């Protein structure tokens, strides 16, 4: 039954998300062909005034494009959850012979699959846009010095490229899952505001985000990641260790946040469904 639920959840999201990502990739190819492919080359004078303005516009365009695709993906995932569970469609979904927990699991898996695909396609799109032969050449040339900083060889255990890549992918995936669960929890909590369910969901989203940020700040302060000693110019400050500790803390907080919010949503789906 879970497989069937996931199939229908993916199917419902595919229509919009395939369109959005085909457009993203198409726009990226256009930008590469007509702009970055021409300017990110050996002969370009990067200090030239004629280069700076178009380059600035390009950066803005790229940020807008990628943010819009990421935002649209998250919106489609959240809307699918709301419509399928709490609007008219909920009258069918909630009378299927499956538990509320299974419905939530199905939607979480489907949402995370699309979240991960979105993340992958955003990276591919970024690479299409900036990965000109000139840029890849620059990266290869300077890889050794970049790597010696990133691999932290003299400041702790050495990281291999594969380990760093896995860490990056793992962090991205945790972020994707945390986002999907946060959206679902917000929508589910929003249902307790009669007559203003969507507004309730938006308010819940901001309240949860603010609460998580405040808790993060407190934990950072308690664990010594905030304070007078944390200053880039301070003698005792070690940037790589600071980043590593911050990343560890962010990952732990994300996992905890996800577990708590998933449990809350699960409880609502199992015990508190009220389609008034």
């Amino acid at each position, binding site marked *: 039954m879970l497989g069937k639920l996931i199939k229908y959840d993916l199917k419902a999201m595919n229509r919009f998300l395939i369109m959005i990502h085909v457009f993203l990739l198409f726009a990226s190819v256009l930008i590469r062909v007509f702009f970055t492919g021409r300017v990110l080359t050996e002969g370009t004078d990067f200090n030239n005034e004629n280069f700076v303005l178009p380059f600035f516009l390009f950066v803005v365009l790229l940020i807008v494009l990628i943010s819009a695709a990421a935002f649209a993906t998250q919106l489609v995932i959240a809307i699918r959850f709301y419509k399928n569970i709490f609007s008219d469609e909920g009258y069918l979904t909630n*009378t299927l012979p499956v538990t509320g927990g299974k419905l939530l699991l199905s939607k979480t898996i489907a949402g995370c699959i699309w979240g991960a695909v979105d993340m992958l396609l955003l990276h591919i799109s970024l690479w299409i846009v900036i990965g000109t032969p000139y840029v890849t050449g620059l990266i290869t040339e300077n890889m050794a010095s970049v790597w010696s900083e990133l691999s932290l060889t003299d400041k702790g255990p050495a990281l291999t490229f594969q380990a760093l890549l896995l860490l990056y992918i793992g962090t991205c995936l945790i972020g994707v899952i945390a986002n999907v669960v946060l959206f679902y929890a917000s929508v589910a909590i929003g249902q307790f505001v009669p007559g203003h369910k969507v507004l309730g969901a938006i308010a819940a989203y901001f309240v949860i985000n603010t609460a998580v940020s405040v808790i993060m700040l407190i934990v950072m302060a308690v664990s010594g990641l905030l304070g007078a000693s944390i200053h880039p110019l301070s003698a005792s400050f070690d940037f790589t260790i600071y980043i590593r500790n911050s990343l560890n803390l962010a990952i732990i907080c994300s996992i905890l946040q996800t577990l708590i919010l998933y449990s809350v949503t699960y409880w609502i789906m199992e015990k508190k469904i009220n389609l008034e």
Partner: protein
Amino acid sequence: MIPILECKGLSKSYHNNQYALDNLNLTLERGQIIGLLGPNGSGKSTLIKLINGLLIPTGGCALINGMLPGVETKKIVSYLPERTYLEPSMKVKDAITYFTDFYGDFQSERAYKMLRDLEIDANVRLKTLSKGAKEKVQLILVMSRDAMLYVLDEPIGGVDPAARDYILRTILMNYNEDATILLSTHLIYDIENVLDRVIFLQNGRPVLNAAVDEIRTEQKKSVDVLFREVFRC
């Protein structure tokens, strides 16, 4: 034998603290067609949603075949809400596949036959159908299940009188003799000939629970006339 539906002190209040259902005690036996009748706001839809697990009761409980609403009861209850619950971008045949996938008692051949009878193309998307045609599709889906309890909320409200007759015939022809149909409607005149029993609800409480034959023989009135008398404004 366990009754198909038993409500024990069933209550539901909404946020304004007014009771939509107030301590309802009700038992429905198997093999009957029961009309759930009452004016707007009498608690009909609330009762139907509670039976289907779409609302959490404030007090008491509804037992379907002896069980609280859950996965097992959803397997045996076929529910038609008073709104369109299918995804508009779905084709009619996709909706049939959907029901086949999730309900073990769904008979797709029966569904296709009814679609042909009502001249509804299975290849069209639901969003291109009229409101009445969508209601017909939903009723076909619901009546194509071999359920033990059919709960139909306003099944004929949005369709023309000709289709209404077909739908009523469809309901009569497609349910198992041991199954029970609980249907709510305002169109009492159209359906009273198919009903075995009626329940009149007012302010969340039953004011009448009687066999239709009793009403006709003892009170010498049709259900429609009695309804107008009981609920006169």
